[in-house]
């Protein structure tokens, strides 16, 4: 296959920061495409700035004035001659106005069309579209009603148990799970009263209650020549505060038949939306094997590496190829899932204290290594973790022949991933991975709430060890350089600032 020898783009501007920016820049380097980093004042010393061939400052730390500043990003792209922009995830990745603007300026947006982003960003409209396309939705009422008979009919159609939700709702207020028809009347009244008190609005609706749901999503790829495929599933049921922290593939809950049906529906969703490039179709899967469309994410996902490891593919490179107008690489039509992959997100947050964000300077940084271990990191020693941005610092991904080995390998890798200076939730994730229910594959979206809400680490049993480690540090090493301010390890050497050089034959030909 010789598709990468022809230059797909001259130069790609990466409109993002930290690990995902570096991930994209590495893909650019592999393809022989120059890359441009943009950075805010808060990121002047950050790792992603030095991973590209050029870097350009784009303004103050506040995202609105830098990473979300469309005018500024377009101006930089024009000035440096970038013919494409990769938005990463977050920031402008799912902003249709940005995709529109790129198109107007003649710069390729590496992602779906603005129209597809707009449609899928509207959760109500996209559900209607997908329902019409025959994709299963959570059964329930399309609108609120006053007559109890409407609720009775809807409950009967959806099948008990059902859940009553406040239209203005949130935080569990005005919510009632109803197991049978005789409870419906009283529950409806209670939910309305609660909703009225909480939101000054007694509008409630009803839908099927999903028992023990799992979050299962499908990676899809679609080129501009009518070809759409799925690249299997990822299960992301382990969430805290509705944010994923542990992701894996394959999902233990899918039989080959169920995988085939869900994958086919994921492709159907992408086609119904006129989707191109990489995207993710999210489903809720219940414990009886029924699944329901939730939404489609129109970007590369944080958890994309698990898919890459079990399929041996490179999704970011494929994004770039598709955006350049090439046909989908043929190997995507014959991929198989080999072994098992797990990802843990390394956030700067205190796993011992309700995941409170943690800020500071990275005083020590060392990564695990070995067969099947991948680290996508945006930090290094000396990096500053500030309150300006999302607290994700890195992702640790492992690949092993089976799930049990992958779990063991991940625990080892987490223990050998040393980040000092800010808090992380490494230990919390180890407790997830070691939990008998996780090992048994009983991973539902309420896992943390159900099994780990009472969790506490007994620090006092570590006091002799802690004092011993402090003693060793006191007698064998001096104060860390980051502490004394004598050197900043992330400061680039002149070699890093030079960008790609031509030594002998041009590396770009």
């Amino acid at each position, binding site marked *: 296959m010789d598709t990468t020898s022809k230059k797909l783009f001259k130069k790609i501007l990466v409109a993002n920061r930290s690990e995902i920016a570096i991930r994209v820049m590495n893909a650019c380097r592999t393809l022989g495409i120059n890359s441009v980093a943009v950075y805010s004042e808060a990121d002047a010393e950050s790792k992603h700035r030095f991973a590209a061939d050029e870097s350009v400052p784009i303004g103050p730390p506040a995202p609105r004035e830098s990473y979300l500043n469309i005018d500024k990003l377009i101006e930089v792209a024009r000035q440096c001659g970038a013919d494409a922009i990769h938005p990463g995830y977050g920031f402008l990745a799912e902003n249709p106005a940005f995709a529109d603007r790129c198109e107007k300026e003649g710069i390729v947006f590496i992602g779906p069309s603005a129209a597809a982003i707009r449609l899928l960003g509207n959760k109500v409209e996209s559900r209607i579209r997908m329902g019409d396309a025959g994709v299963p939705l959570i059964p329930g009422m399309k609108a609120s009603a006053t007559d109890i008979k409407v609720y009775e009919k809807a409950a009967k159609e959806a099948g008990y148990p059902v859940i009553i939700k406040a239209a203005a709702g949130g935080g569990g207020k005005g919510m009632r799970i109803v197991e049978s028809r005789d409870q419906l009347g009283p529950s409806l009244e209670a939910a309305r009263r609660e909703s009225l008190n909480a939101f000054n609005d007694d509008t409630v609706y009803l839908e099927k209650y999903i028992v023990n749901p799992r979050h299962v999503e499908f990676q899809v790829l679609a080129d501009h020549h009518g070809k759409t495929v799925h690249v299997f599933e990822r299960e992301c049921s382990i969430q805290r505060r509705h944010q994923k922290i542990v992701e894996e593939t394959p999902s233990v809950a899918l039989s080959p038949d169920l995988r085939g049906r869900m994958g086919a529906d994921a492709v159907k969703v992408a086609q119904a939306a006129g989707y191109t490039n990489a995207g993710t179709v999210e489903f809720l899967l219940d414990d009886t094997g029924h699944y329901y469309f939730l939404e489609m994410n129109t970007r590369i996902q944080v958890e994309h590496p698990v898919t890459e490891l079990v399929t041996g593919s490179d999704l970011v490179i494929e994004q770039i190829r598709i955006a350049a107008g090439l046909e989908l690489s043929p190997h995507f039509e014959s991929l198989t899932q080999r072994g098992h992959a797990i990802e843990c997100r390394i956030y700067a947050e205190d796993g011992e204290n309700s995941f409170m964000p943690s800020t500071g300077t990275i005083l020590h940084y060392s990564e695990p290594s070995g067969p099947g271990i991948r680290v996508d990191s945006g930090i290094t020693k000396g990096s500053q973790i500030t309150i300006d941005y999302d607290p994700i610092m890195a992702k640790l991904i492992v690949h092993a022949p089976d799930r049990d080995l992958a779990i063991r390998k991940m625990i080892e890798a987490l223990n050998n991933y040393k980040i*000092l200076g800010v808090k992380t939730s490494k230990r919390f994730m180890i407790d997830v991975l070691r939990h008998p229910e996780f090992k048994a594959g009983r991973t539902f979206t309420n896992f943390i709430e159900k099994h780990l809400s009472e969790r506490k*680490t007994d620090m006092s049993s*570590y006091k002799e060890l*802690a004092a011993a480690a402090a003693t*060793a540090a006191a007698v064998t*090493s001096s104060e860390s350089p980051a502490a004394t301010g004598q050197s900043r390890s992330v400061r680039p050497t002149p070699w890093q600032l030079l960008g790609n050089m031509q030594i002998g034959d041009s590396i770009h030909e």
Partner: protein
Amino acid sequence: MNSHEFVFEGEELSTTSELLGNQVRVVSGEREFLLSRVGENLYSLTVNGKAVQAAAVRHQGVFYIDIDSILLEVKEPSEDGFAGGAGGHEGEKDKIYAPMPGKIVKILVAVGDEIEVKQPMVIVEAMKMENQVNSQAAGKVKAVNFAAGDQVDTESPIIELELAE
């Protein structure tokens, strides 16, 4: 053999260490560890028969430690804190001051006593907490200027020492 003092979760801990090339033998409380330096800030040690990798780095008087992915912070006893000597009187090792204005709960030594470094000298109550003040140097108690129950500020020495050579 070197001895070290730390504060962990409010508790004072002491260790002794012996440097053996690339290894450090540490006696910590009832336990003994042999830590081998395997990289910058990285140590390998055996705990209950299993090899464990620890990371430890010192930054502004605090040791940041990762053992088994548990993140621990161990502090050096501060010179002017409760575990140390008198605040704002650095260099005056022959005088013991209260760390903050308060009431003397107990004087732990008497005139003529021989004193070792970091020996508890007096307990002062401030902000509803009892704070032990230790000596910063070895010597002999020359004068005790206050008694239990007295109010003290941070400027008047509670105890005066005659420093040893």
